[in-house]
């Protein structure tokens, strides 16, 4: 039914998600962190679309639109926080944002 076997999609989504996770952990630049978060969201989106196709249920695809909308809003909020941090600290290196240290 699918041109490509389902397992390929799963593996691809897994790789994308893992990349995103590692991006969040490794990146020192907050912009890269945000991009990595997008990557994780998209891995999830991919699976939603694939399973919608597999099950013949459009609900999954509809969900993707919501996720995209939320992701866009999140990016907007995230970037504006970023700007605020930059104004205050003069840097967007996450390693220097450690005022919550106990």
């Amino acid at each position: 039914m699918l041109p490509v076997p389902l397992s390929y999609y799963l593996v691809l989504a897994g790789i994308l998600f893992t990349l995103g996770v590692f991006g969040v952990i490794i990146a020192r630049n907050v912009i890269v962190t945000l991009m990595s978060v997008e990557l994780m969201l998209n891995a999830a989106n991919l699976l939603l679309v694939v399973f919608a196709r597999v099950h013949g249920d459009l609900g999954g695809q509809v969900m993707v639109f919501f996720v995209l909308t939320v992701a866009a809003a999140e990016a907007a909020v995230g970037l504006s926080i970023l700007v605020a941090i930059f104004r205050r600290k003069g840097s967007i290196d996450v390693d220097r944002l450690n005022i919550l240290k106990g």
Partner: protein
Amino acid sequence: MNTLLWTLPLWPLVGFLLNGFFGRRWGKRTAGLVACASVFLSFAVSLFAFAAVRSADTGRLTVTLFDWIVTGNFHASVSFLLDPLSAVMILVVTGVSFLIHVYSLGYMGHDPDQPRYFSFLNLFVFFMLMLVLADNFLVMYIGWEGVGLCSYLLIGFWFRRLSAVRAGMKAFVVNRIGDFGFSLAIFLIFWHFNTVNFLEVFERAPSVAAAYSGTLTAIGLLLLLGATGKSAQIPLYVWLPDAMEGPTPVSALIHAATMVTAGVYMIARCSTLFALAPVTLLVVAIIGAATALFAASMALVQNDIKKVLAYSTISQLGYMFLALGVGAFAAGIFHLMTHAFFKALLFLGAGSVIHALSNEQDLRKMGGLKKSMPVTYWTFLIAALAIAGVPPLAGFVSKDEILWRSFSSPLGHWTFWLVGTITAALTAFYMFRLVFLAFHGESRVAHDVHPHESPASMAQPLIALAVLSVIGGWIGWPRTLGGGAWFEHFLRPVFEHADQTLALSAGEHSAGLEYGLMAVSIIVGLLGILLAYQWYIKSPERPERWKARFAGLYNLVLNKYWVDELYDTVIVRPIVGLGRVVYRGFDLAVIDGAANGIAGLMQSLAAGGVKTSTGRFRFGAATFAVGCAVALGWVLVTVMGAAR
């Protein structure tokens, strides 16, 4: 009457509350007037109460205000018992209190803290009335503790003076020792009688005495311990001389006329219990006689006018205990009453002198005050004659009754009589030493002090008390001298039980013997006065010569036999030392150690835990990711495992 009776202690309480809350706003004058008015109302009610008791069929009235403790078959209520004994007490308490309140208006006139003074004084009267009106041991205990509290507050009234604060504390602590005995006695009574109501306890006492012979002795001795604390008897008398740090009207009211007689009243009230355990009565008599003599000897050499009176008070209280101990309960209460009159008068007279000399209390700096203070002098002289036992004044009648009974009673002994008679001679001597040193001879007053007669508010109570000191004894005029011994007759119903138990019979001695002993006691009293005259008027250099000749003895007595120092070394220091050891070894090490140890443990745990909170975003993200992975893995493994 019953409806009016409960207001008797209410008025001073109202006075206390009003003065306590509004006294500062009202100012000194109003506060004093409110206090006097409240006590006067109580006095008026007391007169009615007295009349009611005389006309009551059963000879007593009880008024229950409300149930206080009701558990199982134990029942205690706040209720009053008005019988001849408490009727006499309320009359003495409210009457003398009223006079002393009036006197205080003048004496404390310059003191800015008058509202506080009067509110405490009113509170004292309230608690004293609770004490004497109580119809059970618990209510009595409230009054007992309350008067102790007021005594403490008023001794330390001038709390800016360290010695006053110390004296207040000493009085409180020493009284606590006595109160401890009293409370143990109440516990024992509750345990064996299952009630604390006076009448019920006395009713069941014979059967309890038959079943447990030692119990009543224990109760009696513990009650006696309480009485020795409150009434300043050996071994707990040490607080009373120090209590003279308080204002003089307080010394007159609390530490001479009323509160210190609470022990006498309590023993008289429990006469039934004491009569069933004659050993305790013997102890009471011995303590009383010993205290009378011992305290009188210390009064001989004191130079502080109030200290002389303080030791005199202890000595006279000893007489009362002696009377109780030989089974002459009515005589003890009679002496309590007459003593309240003349000792209050002596203290107020002394206060008048102190007031006139701008707070000078040293007898060596007085002298020749007779001319400048005639009212004080003559009233003081009357009181001194009364306490010295010169007929027909009040002190003669009551003291002679005690001496006669201590000789003639089956419980008495001629040694008791001898000790009492020697004490009578000493009393006459030290009292007239005081009179001669203060009022006669050359003036030794400092030159910048000009003695003056006290204002009317102080002089009038003196006159009233002087009249009472003269006629107060006549209501108990002995039969042998043609009197009716009306006082004893009036109190007879109260002590009926005890008299029957002790099987006292009075008529086995001849009237001639009574006349003889009476003559002896009058003669020794007059001899004491004469000796004081010889020493302090005729040849004032003689006391100094004797002082030098018996320097060792003189110093021993002057330093109060080193009893304070002895108590300090034997009791106070070891207890303080023990307290310190326990404080360091247990409080600091164990209790504080446990609390601090737990806190420290938590702190070090937190110090470890806080390291995980690095504040580094990437570390947080990584731990979050790992945590998610682990949780997910665990779910997978369990779900898969369950599926397989």
